[in-house]
């Protein structure tokens, strides 16, 4: 894959390094001259000096043949414009933007960015899971549909153990896509009966995630 990374701060630097090690073709674009000179020793031709929000730079970078453009500068507004230009002018199939203010996530989605990554949000979710005993883990917000993948491990005391999938009181816009039982993945049918220690993988709209969580969780004493 050909991947263009805009912004060679810590995030861009380690991402480039990781992707190069995995055998991808990578171009790291950075506007600061001194930072570029420094990186050139390590990355050679894979570093380019320029501004990723300028169409000319992106053309020179060969953005029209890029599979992914990752915008990971420290400024949300720059990451938005970089991603939009990549999409509109170079038809880049996938744009990923780093977000610093987690509240910008939904704005970016509304404005057409394929995927966003907010380290603030990731850390927050980790903390939240810690507090809520981590029975349901949101794996990723699915592109623009605002859909979450959740992975639930059923405890022996879960109220759904022994029930058929078709009898579960699922919230609207929720779909059980896979059950993992003793390390075997199976595609569930309506009459599949859930067992303790099953891992249930479901897709659910973000606003119904909490409700889905309740269906599987062991009952809390009031």
């Amino acid at each position, binding site marked *: 894959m050909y991947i263009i990374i805009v912004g060679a701060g810590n995030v861009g630097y380690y991402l480039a390094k990781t992707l190069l090690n995995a055998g991808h073709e990578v171009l790291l674009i950075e506007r600061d001259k001194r930072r570029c000179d420094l990186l050139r020793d390590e990355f050679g031709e894979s570093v380019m000096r320029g501004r990723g929000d300028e*169409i000319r730079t992106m053309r020179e970078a060969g953005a029209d043949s890029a599979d992914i453009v990752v915008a990971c500068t420290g400024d949300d507004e720059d990451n938005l414009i970089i991603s939009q230009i990549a999409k509109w002018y170079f038809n880049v199939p996938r744009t990923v933007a780093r977000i610093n203010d987690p509240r910008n996530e939904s*704005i970016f989605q*509304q404005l057409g960015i394929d995927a966003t990554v907010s380290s603030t949000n990731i850390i927050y979710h980790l903390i939240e899971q810690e507090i809520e005993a981590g029975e349901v883990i949101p794996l990723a917000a699915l592109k623009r549909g605002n859909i979450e993948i959740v992975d639930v491990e059923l405890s022996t005391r879960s109220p759904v153990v022994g029930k058929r999938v078709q009898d579960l009181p699922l919230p609207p816009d929720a779909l059980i896509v896979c059950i993992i039982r003793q390390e075997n993945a199976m595609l569930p049918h309506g009459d599949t009966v859930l067992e303790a220690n099953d891992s249930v993988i479901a897709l659910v709209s973000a606003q119904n995630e909490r409700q889905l969580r309740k269906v599987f969780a062991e009952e809390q004493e009031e």
Partner: protein
Amino acid sequence: MRIVILGCGRTGAALARIMAAEGHRVTLIEWNNDSLERLGGKFTGAVITGNGLDEDVLKKAGIEQADMFVALTEGDNRNLMAAQIAKDRFRVPKVIAKVNDPIRAEAYRERGIYTICYSLIGSAMIRDLAYDRPLGSVEEYNVVPPELKD
């Protein structure tokens, strides 16, 4: 009209003072208190101190009821992001952004954000003056000439 202006630079301050004096309800958003001195003592509008890309700040400035939003900070990308939030998120009927890079100004104008490019307008005007030609219209000046398209 209810007008929200982002950025109290020279343009933002001048626009805010004039429109407020003309009887419009003007709210200015600026994060640097020192810049607010540009407004002088007689400004009758409201001032919100904060980040203009923050939805809470925009709401506090009354963007939900605004008839017009103008983004005039020093950053092209900041102006373009704020303008898109105003247009797509809050459905403000009239949205204008200052964008200094001519190419980016054109790119977003084609997608429905009214962009004003001072560098284009200034250079085109000076060119007419150089040739002793009658001055053109701002609309004509605000278009990227072929020489700048690589």
